[in-house]
């Protein structure tokens, strides 16, 4: 169709897509914001129980995952730099490292949740209902919801990065058209920022 | 407002009504004033009468004027509302306490001496503090004539309201927070009595241990059920409400669902007791699980015996 050709014309506006991404990040922040409000209210209402429950969590796994995410955040940021320098190979390499670190994070999460399950701790589990105080039940409820939602965001982030990598490889994302990779990076950093808060709130403050 | 005869039904009426009238007064002033101005403009500057508009882009002076005047007025209205509300959150120390239980879908009231009723009896001119206990979901205790309302939140500590009835009479008491099917039937009455009449009523053990009580557990059973509110969900005339009707229930063959499986049982003492203490163990077929809550701790074994005696009579 000749006529439809011009309506599909995509004018490329890097700043528009960047602002768009930032706005989307804002909604994500407020999404987690709702949960942070709940967390802080319940922590305030049940300080002792939250204290007790947090001891159950493994600071080591938490710290390990923090380190992984921080490194991956750096590599994805570097990927943009190398794209701008027109170095496709480095871009792909750095993004791959990011993806791998993200996957390792998920594997750790899997084991961490698995340990909780084997201790009889899962939402609505009989063990929790019978032996735990209300504050502890709330703590673990929030723990599963918030880290679960965060893991979901990791997965989304990984998908976006993967898409960006494919496009970089095909050459449709390049130094003068870097928005997709930059946005993938922005999203990944958001996931990082959220974890930066989740980690002390669940693992450190005991 | 509510109705002129009950104007002074409680200590809060005057203050609330005053705030109401002042806010309404200011509102009407603006509403009428602005509407009139608007209509006058529409008439006067109609195209026919004023073919050529005069361009005016604005006026800082006017903007300031109509920011500051409403600002002052809103502060005034806010203050009024706050000042009249303030005392509602501070019950006097010597207030008489009554515990109110709200459950789907009735209220019951327990006095300090253990007496329970389904109608709220109160002495005139004495402050009362109602301690609010919600058994299942949110309810809200609302007495329009007294201008008071407070949500009953399950699990909330220190959930109370207070007021001082100042006029004898009978007033409506509604549940004002939506609580499910029979929300609109969750109402009862407040009866405000002369102080001495009230004391008599409260200490009148004859009503509790009336001749009927000793000789007829039936009447006691009925009274207990009345005051704790079984009839909100169960009829005695065979009509189906939220729960099964009690008509002819004794000795009946019933299909119940136990742990997901249907079975036949005969309604006997043990079954009724279980139905009351652990209603979700056997769920009568065709009815919803989870609506009826356990009455363990609220009804003693004796109470239940009386209830059973009464149920036996419902042929």
């Amino acid at each position, binding site marked *: 169709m000749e006529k439809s050709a011009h309506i599909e014309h995509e004018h490329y*506006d890097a700043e*528009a897509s960047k*602002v768009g991404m930032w*706005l989307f990040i804002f*909604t*994500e922040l407020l*999404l*987690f*914001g709702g*949960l942070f409000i709940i967390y802080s209210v*319940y922590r305030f209402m*049940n300080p002792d129980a939250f204290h007790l429950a947090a001891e159950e969590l493994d600071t080591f796994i938490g710290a390990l995952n923090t380190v992984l995410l921080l490194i991956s955040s750096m590599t994805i940021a570097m990927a943009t730099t190398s794209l701008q320098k027109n170095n496709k190979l480095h871009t792909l390499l750095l993004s791959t490292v990011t993806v791998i670190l993200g996957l390792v994070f998920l594997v750790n999460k899997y084991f961490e949740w698995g340990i909780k399950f084997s201790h009889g701790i899962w939402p*609505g589990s009989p063990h929790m209902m019978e032996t735990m105080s209300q504050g502890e039940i*709330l703590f673990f409820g929030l723990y599963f*919801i918030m880290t679960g939602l965060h893991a979901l965001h990791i997965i989304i982030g990984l998908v976006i990065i993967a898409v960006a990598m494919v496009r970089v490889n095909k050459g449709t994302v390049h130094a003068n058209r870097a928005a997709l990779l930059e946005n993938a990076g922005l999203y990944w950093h958001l996931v990082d920022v959220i974890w930066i808060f989740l980690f002390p709130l669940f693992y450190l403050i005991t | 407002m509510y109705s002129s005869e009950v104007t002074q039904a409680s200590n809060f009426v005057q203050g*609330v009504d005053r*705030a*109401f009238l002042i806010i*309404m007064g*200011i*509102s009407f002033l603006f509403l009428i004033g*602005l509407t009139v101005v*608007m209509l006058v*403009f*529409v008439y006067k*500057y109609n195209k026919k009468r*004023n073919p*050529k508009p*005069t*361009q*005016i*882009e*604005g006026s800082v002076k*006017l*903007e300031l004027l*109509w*920011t500051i005047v409403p600002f002052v007025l809103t*502060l005034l209205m*806010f203050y009024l*509302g*706050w000042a*009249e509300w303030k005392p509602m959150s501070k019950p006097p120390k010597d207030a008489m306490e009554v515990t109110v239980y709200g459950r789907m879908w009735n209220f019951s009231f327990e006095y300090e001496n253990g007496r329970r009723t389904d109608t709220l009896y109160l002495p005139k001119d004495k402050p009362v503090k109602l301690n609010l206990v919600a058994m*299942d979901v*949110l309810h809200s205790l609302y007495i*329009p*004539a007294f201008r008071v*309302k*407070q*949500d009953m*939140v399950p699990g*909330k500590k220190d959930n109370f309201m207070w007021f001082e009835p100042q006029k004898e009479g009978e007033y*409506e008491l509604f549940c*004002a927070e*939506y609580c*499910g*099917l029979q*929300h*609109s039937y969750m109402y009862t009455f407040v009866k405000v009595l002369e102080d001495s009449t009230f004391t008599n009523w409260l200490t009148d053990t004859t009503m509790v241990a009336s001749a009927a009580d000793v000789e007829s557990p039936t009447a006691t059973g009925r009274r207990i059920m009345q005051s704790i509110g079984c009839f909100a969900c169960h009829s005695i005339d065979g009509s189906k409400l939220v729960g099964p009707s009690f008509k002819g229930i004794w000795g009946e063959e019933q299909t119940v669902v136990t742990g997901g499986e249907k079975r036949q049982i005969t309604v006997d003492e043990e079954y009724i007791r279980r139905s009351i203490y652990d209603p979700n163990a056997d769920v009568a077929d065709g009815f*919803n699980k989870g*609506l009826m809550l356990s009455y363990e701790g609220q009804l003693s074994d004796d109470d239940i015996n009386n209830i059973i005696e009464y149920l036996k009579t419902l042929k």
Partner: protein
Amino acid sequence: MHTSHAENEANYLKYKGKYKGLLGWILSTDHKRIGLLYLYSIATMFSVGALLGLAMKFELLAPGKTIMDAQTYNATFTVHGVIMIFMIVIPGLPAVFGNFLLPIMLGAKDVAFPKLNLLSWWLYVAGVFLVLSALLFGPGTPDTGWTFYAPYSFKTGTNLLPAVFGAFVLGFSSILTGLNFLVTIHRLRCPGLKWTKLPLFVWTIYGTAWIQLLATPVVGITLVLIALERIFGVGVFDPALGGDPILYQHLFWIYSHPAVYIMILPAMGAISEIIPTFSQKHIFGYKAIIASTMAIAFVGWLVWGHHMYTAGMSGTAQYYFSLLTFIVAIPSAIKVFNWISTLYKGSINVQTPFYWAISFIFVFMIGGLSGLVLGSLATNIYVHDTAFVVAHFHYIVFGGTGFSFFAAMHYWFPKIFGRMYDKAWANIGWLVFFIGFLALYSPMFYLGMMGMPRRYYDYLEEFHGGNILSTFGSWIMVTGLIIIITNLVRSARRGPKAEMNPWHGKTLEWTVTSPPPLENFDEIPVIAEDDGPYNYK
């Protein structure tokens, strides 16, 4: 760009693209077609919601059972509320008129992300079907009220999950629309169109979009928690597991109070366009109106607690929320004053959109002023959760957003469809509707002051009189509405051809043909230094 002139002659309604017929609509990324898609879907849902409202009024004609039982009634007001709020007044003006007009008013060819725009509509449709599926399948229609208050919302045996997920999806659609509009306003203003030259409708869309973006996710996560609580028994709001039902209310109203300003801001924007056009006069206090728009958007975020005065909050919170509720009324007052001043020394052309606009101001004042009664602590305790609140929000939601929607409909109708409606019938329709409106909702103020609680299926004899009047009012209003809708539907297909600028407006949409060409402008317009949206000479 490379669009030839002849090609652009075809208006957007006639344009034949890659797809034909219906597909050419539901797969179109043209902002004007998407605007119309929203118009049709919202009109359909409005008919459903309105009929439910009518049914409720019929039930309340007399105490006891009239046409439905209590369960049905409770389900009816829940579905009525969910439809009206999430599917009609929240998307209403932004999605219909915002989509249609925003790019044109900015001198742009489309919104910033046309595909995302189409996705928003699809999500809207998906949300609608999800909610409706709750009615058709499963153990019963949801009966919690549109507020889904915990703990009842996870105790009820009815089919709540689809409704909750539906509301979530609708929220997502709303977020994406807001995001799109924000980027469009930031990036696609035509040369010379400075921020201080934007039409006021665009400014209100801007404020609204921020609220959509920031507030909606909060209710999104809250609804997800309700769902998780129902499915997995995770304890979050359940008091039996230590949860606090009042926290649910906080989170719900953190969104839902700002949401009422999502509903009203674009409505105010439309009125701010109509009043100057029909007075042929520069809007009075342009900057003050912008400032009040942004003030409403911002302060409106901070006052959610006024829905919870009786819930058992701390005294400090009560004090704070009441104070800010009063403060947030001031910017609305500023707008009313400026609108009325715009009329002063104008040359007023009294036409249907203008009737709607001044009746908007009237009912909006009543609705808003009754909001003051509700915002005040002492009086709120008395009338909270009574028919008074129902009257307040119908006056301001229906009277405000609804009236403005009709005003906008009659104002931009010739632009959208390129045809004019029958003006006499439009005026008659307005009059009947207006009378019906007053008769329908005014008695509810009285009933509320008498103490009749809301969400009551049945009521005591003393409330009978007011309810009868109100029900009669609803019948008058239906009559008016049917006249209006019939007139519009007929005229869209058969009305006389409309001029390019029938009302002599000054904003950019009146500089393009009616209906607008496919890409709005052959050449991106340039706004001269002394030009502006309200510069009447």
